[in-house]
């Protein structure tokens, strides 16, 4: 079994990490954080440390508690119990300072649809009190970086979802934040917008920035994140390296396309060669469950020896559901 544990690494002997000084190596420190809406806990006894310089992926569906967590981190709502520190600051009392040093992208970013893209950025630069010359320079850069040159003079009301999101992320980065809190930055985006958003997240990290990325897209988490945590009903149910997490599930299922009339022969050949796998079939498809990746060659060999014509063998790409399923399965074992 791979190393996915809900515990975070212990802090020992880091220079400059004594109690009087702020520990620069931890960007977000969440301890026993809980938030109730009425009776229901939206976030339930959450513990998490995000290290400065990493992209941490918070995986979970809508309602898992991601948005509530972000809102508590920026001081927009107060926790029912527990505590959080962001860049060494307390969100409850120092929310405005946190927001001044943090870029936030919410799921429904409020941009002014009557203003142009550039005007929206200028408006926020003014709001953040950025000196006009510096702001202009920064806005030019962000418009270039997010490929908004051709649309900067268009009113945001005319923007596609992809353009809208690129502008929203540009706005989140406008005041040169040290930390980005991103709530589902890419669902529903066109490929160009997704690529630009991913590139900018990587670039931000390469410059030493820290990112908390909420997503339900496993592939995105695997591509961008140094570590991921899986959130369900307000609780962290697993944490670790994204590849470890996905390989637990991704490696287990293979789809084989064969000629339908060879189905029985295929099932027999597979069960004989690799005992213990579960097999389901629909027409010309044979789905093999519980097959580790390194046994795929054995599967192919068994089918070839049995003279079953094989058109396609494909390990199934796993989704967040598969991760949940595998985690629950391994916990109840």
């Amino acid at each position, binding site marked *: 079994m791979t190393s*996915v544990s809900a*515990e975070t*690494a212990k802090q020992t002997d*880091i220079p400059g990490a004594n109690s009087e000084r702020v520990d620069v190596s931890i960007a977000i420190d969440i301890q026993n954080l809980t938030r109730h809406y009425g009776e229901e806990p939206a976030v339930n006894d959450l513990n998490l440390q995000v290290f400065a*310089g990493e992209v941490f992926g918070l995986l979970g569906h809508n309602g898992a508690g991601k948005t509530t967590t972000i809102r508590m981190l920026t001081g927009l709502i107060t926790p029912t119990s527990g505590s959080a520190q962001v860049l060494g600051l307390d969100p409850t009392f120092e929310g405005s300072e946190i927001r001044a040093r943090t870029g936030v992208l919410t799921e429904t970013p409020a941009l002014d649809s009557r203003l142009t893209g550039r005007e929206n950025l200028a408006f926020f630069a003014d709001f953040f009190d950025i000196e006009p010359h510096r702001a202009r*320079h920064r806005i030019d850069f962000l418009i270039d970086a997010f490929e908004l040159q051709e649309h900067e003079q268009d009113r945001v009301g005319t923007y596609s979802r992809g353009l809208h999101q690129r502008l929203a992320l540009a706005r989140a980065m406008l005041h040169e934040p040290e930390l980005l809190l991103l709530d589902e930055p890419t669902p529903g985006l066109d490929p160009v917008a997704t690529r630009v958003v991913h590139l900018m997240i990587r670039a931000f990290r390469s*410059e030493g920035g820290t990112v908390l990325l909420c997503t339900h897209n496993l592939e995105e988490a695997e591509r961008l994140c*140094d570590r991921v945590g899986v959130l369900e009903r307000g609780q962290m149910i697993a944490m670790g390296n994204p590849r470890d997490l996905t390989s637990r599930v991704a490696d287990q299922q293979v789809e084989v396309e064969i000629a339908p009339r060879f189905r029985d022969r295929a099932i027999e050949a597979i069960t004989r060669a690799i005992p213990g796998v579960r097999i389901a079939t629909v027409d010309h498809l044979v789905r093999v469950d519980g097959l580790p990746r390194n046994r795929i060659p054995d599967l192919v060999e068994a089918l070839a020896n049995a003279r079953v014509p094989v058109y396609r063998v494909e390990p199934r790409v796993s989704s967040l559901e598969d991760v949940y399923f595998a985690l629950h399965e391994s916990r109840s074992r």
Partner: protein
Amino acid sequence: MQIQSLSVVYDENITAVDGLDLDIPPGEFVTLLGPSGSGKTSILMALAGFVRPSSGHVFVDSRDLLALPPNERNLGLVVQSYALFPHMTVEQNIAFPLRMRNWKQTDIDQAVRQAVRMVQLRGYEKRKPGQLSGGEQQRVALARATIFDPPVMLMDEPLGALDRQLRDQLQSELKAIQQRTGITTLYVTHDQDEAMALSDRIAIMRDGSIEQIASPQELYERPRNTFVAGFLGESNVLQGTIHLTGNRVELETDAGWRLPLADASGAGDRHRVHAQIRPERILVEEDPMDVHTTAEVIDQSFAGEMIRLTVRVPSGEQLAIKRQNSGRTSDFQPGRQVTIGWALQDMMVLRD
């Protein structure tokens, strides 16, 4: 750069880096070479700040890097995953880190001009990555990583995604740029040829520690143990017992073959050791040879400019031999009896 007892522990129990000590003098090019899982990438990630070390210090210019937030560490970073922006020109890509830091435009222009000169891309400033060859793109990435004149550059398999031919060409460019800038470089790869071609010193990594650190030549000629010998190039390793009689040092292999050795590398009488000899140091049908024996050819294969023979000596042990392909390829057909041998000092006892 001085790395002192650096450890990286994942999930409290998986030790990726185990108390690493490494001193790199200014301007040196050091490569961490090892199989996947040996901890080499974790070291780089800890220095860059993407992974939190559990203990240790890393001094650069007498400041401890680990006490600085990642955005103040000022390290040049070249990794496979941080691609160029396809919609930006060469100039804009190189300027990116400076614009991200909101530098003044005049300072940016000057730094970019210098960086473009450094990687020899003058005249390419207005092109986009799609209009460049793979090698040129890599030079842009290098320029971007070095534009703020970092004291240390970290590179994680920067050539990993490229095909063989391009890699060879880029290796020499990379080396030339590193020498021109004089930037201290820590490089990670699992490709031994690349490590040999680029490095001043190579650290062979295993299980989070350095097995041996030395110049490429010394590592090749004097590997400390079977792991290093096997990792860097091909090697014939024989297991046996040392016999010391007067000035004579002999190895008695487990199959009963007695071989003279130049020295025992500190091993005492009756000690169990491994001894190694490189395949290209074994000569076939040549005079004079310090040590020689008859052997039967059991396999002959071609690898371009080299011919590889496998022979069996009378005690039953098999040895690999590499010879220059001289064109007389049918000389050593399987089944033929030959005399093989080597210079006494070419077989050495591994220290541990």
